């Protein structure tokens, strides 16, 4: 039995899938296990502004909402043990703005040194600021414009202006546009991971926390989705690719096997990867040689059979005219030579793998052979079921049983044939009443041209019956063995898978 293994397609697919999975698992592990991304840095004054606004909303009895922060109203003062440090300055500031005792206000945060982290100015903010500036400038200009419609006056004014400009000391340069990234304005505290809380008039506490965890979770979920989808698509691709690669190999193996069984089969298709094409060509060349060999052998065997049997037939015809004593002797000799020729030819031409396998009734097969023998007045008996269906080669099995019965009659005078089912196996037993086969010789007699050397057996035959029988049984996935019959004789057991 060949070792069972995964097909190449599965190997490749598994390899790709595992490689991808490993890569992504490392990535996910990195994301999950490494410290989370620090929170966004915000300006302390803006945070307090937002809180003061929300405090008013909360006092009105509603829960405030805003982007980027989590709001809650609780009975307890929020715990700040794990916050790095309360901001004293901001606490006092907030207490003042809310008109509360500083003890009823909490401001805690991660301070961010302003010289390390730059403050990000949003484009939109900048646009608004610049527009406001331009509007202010326009307003100033229109205020300077003369009210009259006199062009001359206007020109004079313009002249004046020009003169003014020329005379006046140069105006201070326009303030530069705020850069995209800039340090915070002086006096502003930068903070991240903050918590701001204040006691409401009813004794409950309004708390504002910077929202960061949710963002992180969202980010992980998105990443996981991306990874999963990628993995699925890649796996699909890997499978398709692997199948594409493996299919011609599978076809090659199939047709190579068919060619091995029957050289007359259609040649292997030369397709697929280059190595495979080379292999297919080699197999096809081999097949052509095999076919020629088989044809040659068949022809040779037919010629041998013809050349040997034609004189035997002549002898048989001559015997018809001879006197009875001589006739019987001649007929017997002819029969013996013919038996030899038959066994040689059968052994030489037989290819147990070639005959088609069909569903057949083994009981009927054995029974009909035994009936034929019994009708020819041979001491052969049958015992067994009326029906036992197996898959096998009808002619091959007939030859197997015939050989065993011949053997039994030759060495043991009678043949008692029994058929039974033993689990997964159909069993044919042929018992005789001869001297049996000593254990030491039991394997030897299966070799071609070895005959039992038992005393008293003037055996005709070439010693091919048992080896042919075993070959046929093994081609069926079974075997033939020799044991002892009761009370005496040899018991040959054939096991064939059902």
């Amino acid at each position, binding site marked *: 039995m060949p070792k069972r293994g995964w097909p190449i397609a599965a190997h490749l697919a598994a390899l790709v899938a595992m490689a991808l999975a490993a890569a992504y698992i490392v990535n996910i592990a990195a994301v999950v296990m490494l410290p989370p991304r620090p929170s966004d840095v915000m300006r302390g004054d803006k945070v307090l502004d937002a809180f003061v606004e929300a405090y008013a909303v909360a006092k009105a009895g509603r829960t405030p909402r805003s982007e980027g922060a989590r709001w809650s109203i609780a009975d307890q003062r929020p715990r700040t043990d794990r916050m790095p440090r309360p901001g004293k300055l901001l606490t006092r500031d907030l207490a003042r703005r809310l008109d509360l005792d500083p003890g009823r206000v909490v401001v805690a945060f991660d301070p961010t040194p302003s010289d390390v982290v730059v403050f990000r100015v949003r484009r939109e903010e900048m646009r608004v600021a610049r527009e406001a500036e331009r509007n202010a400038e326009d307003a100033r200009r229109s205020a300077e414009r003369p009210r009259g419609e006199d062009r001359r006056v206007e020109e004079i004014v313009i002249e004046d202006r020009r003169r003014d400009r020329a005379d006046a000391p140069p105006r201070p340069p326009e303030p530069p546009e705020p850069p995209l990234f800039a340090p915070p304005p002086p006096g502003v505290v930068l903070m991240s991971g903050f918590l701001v809380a204040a006691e409401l008039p009813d004794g409950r506490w309004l708390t504002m926390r910077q929202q960061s965890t949710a963002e992180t979770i969202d980010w992980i979920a998105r990443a996981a989705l991306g990874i999963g989808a990628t993995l699925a698509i890649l796996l699909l691709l890997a499978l398709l690719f692997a199948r594409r690669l493996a299919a011609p190999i599978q076809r090659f193996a199939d047709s190579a096997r068919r060619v091995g069984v029957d050289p007359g089969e259609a040649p292997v298709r030369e397709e697929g990867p280059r190595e495979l094409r080379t292999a297919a060509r080699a197999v096809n060349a081999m097949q052509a040689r095999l076919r020629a060999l088989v044809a040659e052998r068949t022809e040779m065997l037919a010629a041998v*059979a013809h050349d040997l*049997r*034609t004189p*035997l037939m*002549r002898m048989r*015809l001559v015997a018809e005219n001879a006197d009875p004593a001589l006739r019987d002797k001649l007929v017997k000799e002819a029969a013996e030579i013919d038996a030899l020729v038959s066994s040689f030819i059968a052994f030489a031409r037989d290819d147990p793998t070639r005959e088609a396998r069909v*569903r057949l*009734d083994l009981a009927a097969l054995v029974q009909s052979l035994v009936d034929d023998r019994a009708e020819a007045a041979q001491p052969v008996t049958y015992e067994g079921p009326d029906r036992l269906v197996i898959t096998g080669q009808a002619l091959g099995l007939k030859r197997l049983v015939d050989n065993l019965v011949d053997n039994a009659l030759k060495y043991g005078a009678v043949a008692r044939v029994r058929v039974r089912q033993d689990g997964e196996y159909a069993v044919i037993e042929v018992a005789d009443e001869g001297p049996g086969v000593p254990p030491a010789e039991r394997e030897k007699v299966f070799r071609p041209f070895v005959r039992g050397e038992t005393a008293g057996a003037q055996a005709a035959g070439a010693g091919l019956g048992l080896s042919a029988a075993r070959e046929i049984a093994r081609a069926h996935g079974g075997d033939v063995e020799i044991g002892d019959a009761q009370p005496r004789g040899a018991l040959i057991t054939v096991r064939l898978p059902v």
Partner: protein
Amino acid sequence: MPDAPPSPTSPAPPPGAPRVLIVDDDADIRSGLADVFTRAGFNAVAAGDAAAMDRVLEADGADLVVLDLMMPGEDGLSAARRLAARGWPPVIMLSALGDDADRIVGLEVGADDYLAKPCNPRELVARARAVLRRARDTDSKRGPAEAVRFAGFRFDFARRELLDPDGVLVTLSTGEFRLLRAFIERPQRVLSRDQLLDLAFSNDNEVFDRAVDVQVSRLRKKLERADIGELIRTVRGEGYMFTAKPQPG
């Protein structure tokens, strides 16, 4: 090759004797077989190859051809195929290749019987008689590889194969095969034991009525299926009848 005349020592064939044509490339076998057939009461003629066979058949015809398989020129298989296509005369193949597989090939090209060399000459004569009887009795042209269906079974004459309704191959003994063939060729007719003996037991061994009953009961067992009625019915005091109606196929 010239036609070998029957041996001068043999007695003249009785008038109306069946005419058997022996085709073999070996002169000794030709004359020896002609001798055997003549003594058995046939009118025997011989030919050395397929071309000579054609000449004899065209000139005088024959009731039966005994054909060697391996001959120079056209081989026996192809000659048998031509004769089977004509439907007449019936053919017995005589061949040095005696395997079951060879026999099947011979029967499939349309030979009526197949014997391996060396054979018992008397068995050959007995088979010849049986073939002639069958040919006369059915009087039908038989193409190659004939098979029939009945009651879900399929019966292939050449392969001697019986496939049961489940598609399982049921092997028949020689006696069972001949008996079933006799029944199938004469369906829905009562056949007496004597008739069956005549049709299905063509060997030299002495056979008794009892043997017919044994064969019939064996064959019945092989044809027995729960959902099919009795295919071989006993007609008391008369014999047996095959109840199904075989269809070609």
